[in-house]
């Protein structure tokens, strides 16, 4: 859970940096997208690196989901009879992690069908022209809504997920706890803000 989460988190950091290139115009953004396919050349063949990353990510997502499923099943089995007196729990963690994770899972599917394969893309999907594709997506209301909801879920997920992964990997301690919590909050904030900047840019006309 922690290891796969950290892999995805590292990817997300790269992803958000790449995304922000959209504010420098279609040229730079499309060039960046093209570069993603040629990374590692001439050692790697065209798109090999990209596919390698994709494979690692798929493995991470699947591992993350499978362990989440196993953990949830185990947790439910561990308390077959619940409490009569239900309490609004102070910790949002377990619930938001579970539902947030499912939301994120669904989002990833939509996101790939939308902007990678173009299967559910609203406009005419043009491979090799990601700038226009992004603008098309965020020109629809539902595109924006799905994205915004998912990014908020991402923020919450990362906030508990990063800190929690650190604990699972044994990296936390009393003295380091504040630092870890701050980093978790910052990461969550930066990722959410960074990702949301793109649809906001489209909506405000900054990106068109």
């Amino acid at each position: 859970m922690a290891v796969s989460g950290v892999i995805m988190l590292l990817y997300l950091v790269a992803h958000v940096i790449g995304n922000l290139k959209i504010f420098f115009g279609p040229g730079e953004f499309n060039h960046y997208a093209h570069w993603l396919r040629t990374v590692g050349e001439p050692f790697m063949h065209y798109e090999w690196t990209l596919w390698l990353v994709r494979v690692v990510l798929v493995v991470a997502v699947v591992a993350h989901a499978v362990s989440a499923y196993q953990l949830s099943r185990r947790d439910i089995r561990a308390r077959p009879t619940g409490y009569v007196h239900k309490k609004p729990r102070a910790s949002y963690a377990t619930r938001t992690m579970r539902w947030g994770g499912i939301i994120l899972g669904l989002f990833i599917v939509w996101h790939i069908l939308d902007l990678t394969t173009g299967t559910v893309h609203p406009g005419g999907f043009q491979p090799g022209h990601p700038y226009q594709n992004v603008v098309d997506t965020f020109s629809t209301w539902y595109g924006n809504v799905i994205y915004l909801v998912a990014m908020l879920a991402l923020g919450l997920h990362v906030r508990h997920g990063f800190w929690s992964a650190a604990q699972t990997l044994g990296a936390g301690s009393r003295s380091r706890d504040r630092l870890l919590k701050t980093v978790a909050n910052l990461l969550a904030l930066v990722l959410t803000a960074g990702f949301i900047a793109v649809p906001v840019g489209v909506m405000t006309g900054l990106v068109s």
Partner: protein
Amino acid sequence: MKLTLRVWRQQNADADGAMSTYEVDGVSPDMSFLEMLDTLNEELILTGEDPVAFDHDCREGICGACSLVINGDAHGPERTTTCQLHMRSFEDGDTIDVEPWRAAAFPVVKDLVVDRSAFDRIIQAGGYVTAPTGAAPEAHATPVPKPDADFAFEHAECIGCGACVAACPNGAAMLFTSAKVNHLNVLPQGAPERASRVLDMVAQMDEEGFGGCTLAGECATACPKGIPLFSITKMNREFLRAARKGR
């Protein structure tokens, strides 16, 4: 004070249980929660009803026998054991829900009494130092740095009440297990069995059917002895270290 109690009643492990409602009058704010239940039981006995069964013994917050979930909180609203919870924490006219610890690994014995022998088995799996009587070296032969001794003590304070499991949304026993692992693993006396201890105890914990940890933190909030949440992190570190070394 006059109170309405809703108490989980269950004849035995196999019977179905349900909440029953009782009125208790003449409750003094100086009473402990258990003394309030004593009052109820005295009345129940005289009216020919079965008194409410609950575990309790030392009534000074150290034996770990008492184990009630009060209004959804393990040991009730204050950070202490049920026996040290006093009625001044409640208001006249309150309705109070009283339930047993809930976990598959803690089956109900009767009413509010549960079977916590799973904890004993976790300790049996490795929560000790192999030091047969008579084999001990002179106590001052191995100085222990004060911070390590204090750290060990802080974890050794666990009273094994099970509030951590009761409070955990997943019914996990990580805090209990980590408290003992950390107590012994930090001491030079516990070092030779450091790796096998954590691996065996965690394996036993899993076998008992406790839930998995999602670091929700409810355990540390409920712990009457203030075992900190980072105790779990420390155990994870011990676990990874042991797993890497393959014992």
